[in-house]
């Protein structure tokens, strides 16, 4: 196949990526978009394999091992662990780009490379390596392998600064002397830098970090495309690099944050320390009383939050809802856009438990319904129902739109204690008249509620 034909076929694959990404942006077309993009990828691979002058043993075994590992992980993973899996996949993509650039360097075997090739090899190794370790730290945080809270230490900025200087020095040396050692050094320091950049960020901010690292892995692929003059890599990489940036921006906006705030603030570092400092008296309730209140309500709204995911209580809540519906109670779910720890977390979770799509209300729909709601059941949610975001200008989350559960007749909050949520701040809702607390694990509470309901 001539280089021209190949480039045109790569272009077709790139068009598939563009159409795929576009369709991924709308609920109705998202799944087909993913399939189209995958088709483009398959096409790019096949085009590359035709007439390829490659070692089929290495290639075949590599493809097989990779496909088995990636496929198994994707099929086995639990719904709630998907974000960390995406992070891990992303890390592999980053390191692959760095390795391809490295292999290209090795292949030159001492022959002098043009300046721009050296430059793009450096970029590719640097970005790819940062993406690799950065992604795996994100993975470890989300998977609970290391503590999710921001890890800070004195002199952090100094260390990062020194490492950056080290990379620049090595890059200059590599550019001038084409010394292999300099490239290894860049790769090694970049690996360390990836760890140090992500470690100080709180576990709950990881979705944003993953989106950003995803953009970086696109950039790394594009840089590698320059190294080997391959248009498929350049286009695909640039697409992901740019759309990843926009996605990162959209995600921080949905959380009412800025990117630099996410990356550098150590936000959430206080979440364990500040605890229920302020406060006042709370009114508690029991599953039995709650069952009666629910059974005689006509409209119930369930507001799920991160605690629901932690407790894996999605099936339990669905069962309670079925019991209530059998009694003629109308049940709806109020989904805050940033409830949980990843965008769409609650939707995915409840969908897994077969909750019908049309019972999931968005922010505005829920807030319209709440004044006509008898009982609102807050299940492991905290920040997304915190009235300080609306009332207290001094609050760190002031301005974030919330689910205004205090407009409903009765508010029941199910959580294990008075501990704060992700933002690490106290919630006046708990101390309000009309709010009743049920201190329990969400799943246990719902199971108890279910049996109590059968007795009502």
């Amino acid at each position, binding site marked *: 196949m001539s280089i021209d034909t190949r480039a045109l076929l790569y272009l077709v694959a790139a068009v598939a990526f563009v159409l795929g990404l576009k369709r991924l942006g709308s609920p109705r077309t998202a799944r087909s978009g993913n399939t189209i993009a995958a088709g483009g990828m398959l096409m790019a691979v096949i085009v590359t394999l035709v007439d390829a002058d490659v070692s089929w043993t290495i290639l075949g075994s590599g493809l097989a091992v990779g496909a088995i*590992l990636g496929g198994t992980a994707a099929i086995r993973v639990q719904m709630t662990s*998907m974000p960390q899996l995406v992070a891990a996949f992303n890390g592999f993509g980053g390191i692959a780009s760095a390795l391809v650039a490295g292999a290209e360097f090795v292949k030159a075997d001492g022959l002098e490379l043009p300046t721009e090739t050296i430059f793009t090899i450096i970029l590719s190794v640097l970005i790819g390596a940062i993406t690799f370790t950065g992604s795996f730290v994100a993975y470890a945080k989300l998977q609970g392998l290391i503590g999710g809270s921001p890890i800070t230490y004195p002199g952090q900025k100094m260390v990062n600064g020194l490492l950056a200087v080290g990379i620049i020095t090595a890059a200059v040396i590599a550019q001038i002397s084409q010394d292999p050692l300099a490239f290894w050094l860049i790769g090694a320091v970049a690996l360390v830098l990836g760890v140090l950049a992500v470690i100080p960020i709180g576990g709950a901010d990881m979705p944003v970090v993953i989106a950003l690292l995803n953009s970086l892995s696109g950039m790394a692929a594009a840089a590698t495309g320059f190294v080997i003059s391959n248009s498929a890599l350049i286009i695909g990489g640039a697409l992901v690099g740019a759309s990843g940036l926009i996605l990162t921006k959209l995600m921080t906006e949905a959380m009412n944050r800025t990117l630099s705030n996410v990356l550098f603030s150590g936000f959430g570092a206080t979440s364990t320390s500040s605890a229920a400092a302020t406060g006042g008296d709370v009114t508690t309730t029991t599953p039995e009383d709650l069952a009666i209140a629910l059974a005689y309500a006509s409209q119930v709204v369930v507001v799920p939050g991160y605690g629901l995911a932690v407790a894996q209580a999605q099936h339990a809540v669905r069962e309670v809802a079925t019991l209530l519906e059998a009694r003629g109670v109308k049940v709806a779910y109020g989904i805050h856009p940033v409830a949980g720890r990843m965008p769409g977390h609650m939707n995915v979770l409840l969908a897994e438990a077969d909750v019908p799509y049309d019972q999931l209300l968005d922010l505005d729909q829920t807030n319209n319904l709440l004044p006509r709601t008898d009982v609102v059941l807050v299940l492991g949610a905290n920040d997304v129902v915190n009235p300080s975001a609306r009332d207290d200008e001094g609050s760190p989350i002031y301005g974030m739109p919330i689910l205004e559960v205090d407009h409903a007749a009765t508010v029941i909050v199910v959580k294990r204690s008075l501990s704060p949520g992700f933002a690490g701040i106290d919630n006046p809702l708990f101390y309000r008249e009309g709010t009743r607390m049920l201190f329990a694990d969400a799943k246990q509470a719902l199971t108890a509620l279910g049996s109590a309901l059968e007795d009502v």
Partner: protein
Amino acid sequence: MPGIPLTPDVLSPVVVGIIVFVLAAFVGLELISKVPPTLHTPLMSGSNAISGITVVGAIIATGAGSGTLGSVLAFVAVVSATINVVGGFLVTDRMLGMFRKPKRPEDTK
């Protein structure tokens, strides 16, 4: 080529690369404008799979004349990139499969 008076020489690959990169980046920027938060996670995961396009580079890197070190690097690159591509598209598909469709009426069109 005496017949083509105004195309005496061609652009260097780097310049072509830059032009292509800038245009593709603009496409990427414009594509994702108003995606609802619900789809952020699948979109991230899908575009992550696309960044696995580097698998093409990895395949080429397994080419002849790489020596032992080159072959090792290439092998690891192929494995990593394939994990990214295969796993990425599969997990996105699974995720999107969980979003149940609303009732019939909205299905039309």
